[in-house]
């Protein structure tokens, strides 16, 4: 028996020693003086960004030094943990990144977050304000965006050229479908993939067309005539003209999908700007073959729509409110910060008055990868015609409907009763 117990002890001791062999990487030693601000994120690179921002802040504000206590948690769980902390009134951080899809949970009831209005309002004309609206309730802006998330279309010019299609000639969705037919006939490849278990195919074009899942009273109107037309358009591309296929793996972030696209699977895909990183990281073989272009247009619609995002917010458990707010402004809303958002994170920054800054066109991994001469030049052309989305408490429910019912039935199974499917879903959300 003794040997048995010694066995346990020795074994774990051994492993622990091996584990300790790793060189120490202790966080910066705490000194007296600087105020510690805690920050949670679900994104390691966001934390790195904020730590650099603290460096800049401390250099400029010798009398208001900050130490950042930044922690990275898994995506779902960070939001769950925050929900628990705000719910129980204890344990929340000062500053926190809240992802758009989760944001409605924190706008329910009395938001336990602190408004940033006095920082947003003076410079409202320089911001793409729809990006602040999505993190607001009753006129109070609770979240500061990282990016515009402008929807764009990524064309594979190698495939288009093989079919004799010039992407510059595609202005409207009609043009797009025509080009798609040519591509399909010439190469046998689909023009585009449509997500069957996620929202990133339908949401951008629905918003860009001027539609929304909700009306101004927050009622779900996914089944109104306008929206039905958009879903019908997707349905027709898959089942009628057959220029689109359901995304392999179900959505544009599945492991299976990257391999499919990387192998030249489809001629184009529309996604928000932040999808650029997926190309550079996971589809290396397409380097030099992809061009970022404005979305085709709907008659009477918008040129683009801001999609996705993360709102950095300050919780009501913050003890150094003024400092946290000033820092957040400096880190994400100032001009310098907005250039850094592109340089460090590769995001299209929400402050459009920096888009023509020469630093925005300096070579980096994105300018190397994509064919474009000037990515932000393309974006400036669409900035005045960018639709936003209504974020309501019921957003997670309509997303659930799209992911589990609407898209599987329309895109995967080809249920021709588009309006019927949408009506059932809308009724469920409004219930």
């Amino acid at each position, binding site marked *: 028996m003794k040997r048995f117990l010694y066995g346990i002890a020795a074994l774990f001791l051994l492993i622990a020693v091996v584990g300790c062999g790793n060189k120490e990487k202790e966080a910066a030693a705490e000194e007296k003086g600087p105020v510690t601000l805690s920050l949670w994120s679900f994104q390691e690179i966001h934390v790195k960004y904020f730590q650099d921002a603290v460096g800049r802040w401390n250099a400029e504000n010798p009398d208001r030094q900050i130490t950042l206590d930044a922690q990275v948690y898994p995506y779902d769980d960070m939001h769950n943990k925050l929900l628990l902390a705000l719910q129980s009134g204890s344990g929340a951080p000062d500053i926190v990144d809240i992802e758009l899809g989760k944001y409605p949970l924190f706008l329910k009831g009395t938001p336990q977050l602190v408004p940033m209005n006095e920082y947003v309002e003076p410079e409202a004309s320089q911001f793409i304000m729809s990006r602040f609206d999505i993190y607001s309730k009753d006129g109070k802006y609770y979240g500061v965006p990282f990016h515009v998330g402008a929807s764009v279309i990524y064309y594979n010019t190698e495939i288009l050229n093989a079919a004799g299609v010039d992407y510059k000639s595609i202005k409207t969705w009609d043009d797009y479908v025509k080009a798609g037919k040519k591509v399909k006939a010439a190469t046998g490849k689909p023009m585009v993939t449509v997500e069957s278990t996620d929202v990133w195919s339908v949401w951008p074009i629905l918003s860009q067309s001027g539609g929304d899942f909700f009306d101004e009273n927050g009622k779900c109107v996914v089944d109104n005539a306008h929206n039905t037309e958009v879903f019908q358009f997707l349905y027709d591309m898959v089942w009628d003209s057959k220029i689109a296929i359901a995304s392999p793996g179900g959505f544009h972030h599945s492991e299976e999908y990257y391999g499919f696209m990387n192998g030249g699977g489809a001629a184009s895909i529309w996604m928000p700007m932040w999808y650029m990183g997926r190309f550079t990281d996971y589809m290396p073989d397409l380097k030099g073959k992809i061009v970022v272009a404005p979305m085709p247009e709907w008659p009477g619609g918008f040129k683009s729509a801001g999609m996705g995002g993360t709102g950095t917010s300050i919780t009501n458990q913050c003890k150094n409110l003024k400092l946290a707010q000033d820092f957040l402004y400096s880190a994400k809303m100032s001009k310098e910060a907005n250039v850094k958002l592109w340089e460090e994170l590769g995001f299209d920054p929400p402050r459009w008055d920096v888009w023509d800054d020469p630093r925005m066109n300096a070579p980096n991994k994105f300018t190397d990868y994509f064919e474009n001469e000037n990515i932000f030049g393309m974006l400036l052309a669409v900035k005045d015609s960018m639709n936003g989305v209504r974020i309501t408490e019921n957003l997670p429910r309509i997303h*659930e409907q799209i*992911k*589990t019912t609407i898209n599987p*039935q329309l895109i995967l199974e080809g249920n021709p009763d588009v309006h019927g499917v949408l009506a059932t879903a809308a009724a469920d959300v409004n219930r």
Partner: protein
Amino acid sequence: MNRYFFRVRMVPYLFILPFILTFLVIYSYPIIHSVVMSFQEIVPGETRFIGLNNYLLLKDPRFHKALWNSLRYTFWTLAILIPFPILLAVMLNAPDQKGRTAFRSIFFVPSLVSVVVAGTVLRLIFAGSERGMANQIVAALGLPIHDWRLEGPGLAMFLLVLLATWRWLGVNIVYFLAGLQNIPMELYEASRIDGANRFQQFRRITLPLLKPTIVFVVTISIFGGFAMFEESYIFWQANSPNSIGLTIVGYLWRKGFQQGELGAAAAIGVVLLFIILAFNMTSLKLFGFGKED
């Protein structure tokens, strides 16, 4: 006599004291609290009682789907993950079996693989295109290829049960291997002398004497089956097409953390607890648990 009396009176309570403390200090309050929560609407900054409203979810077709999926999953895991591991444990217990340690270890390793990484690998293996490994194999066998994860409820359940078998086979083997050690070799030798064949030995000695272990594994499998979430998450994350992978805990998770309805989630949890209790009480009764003492 007095001392003996004292020790027999007090000692048992000392032995079970850790459990009593854990139960009273750690669990009693949260359990009561979550039952209370199931009668509340909980939104940030506001909490109020809404009677039985949360329990109206029992009428939600999604809940029925979740319940049906969990029920089928529990059935299949019981049907596969009890007899099969017993058989393998008996084989791996045979002293003349070569490579016993290696086999035992191989069967056990899948339970150690991180859920998210197992997901990455399995989603690629069961990719829908003809490139995916599963499709290459069925194609080589002359069978039609499938979009495994997205096609429909039948294949979805197949994947879930396959994954459960992959992950938990080795763990159940461990339980049964331990249980087998409690059976003395003399019994087998005696019965052999009596002319019993191996099948008879298995039925008359191995199975009856393994019964306590079987009762244990059945009980935790019923719990594990109804409380399953991870296996579904591996294939579909939280949302599957037409909810083919939705389970009761998945539904609870969706309500509580995706839609922020903590009260509703608590109600689902309470219902789940009752379902598990009902099934397990029935099974324990059928096994005659608690009678022989």
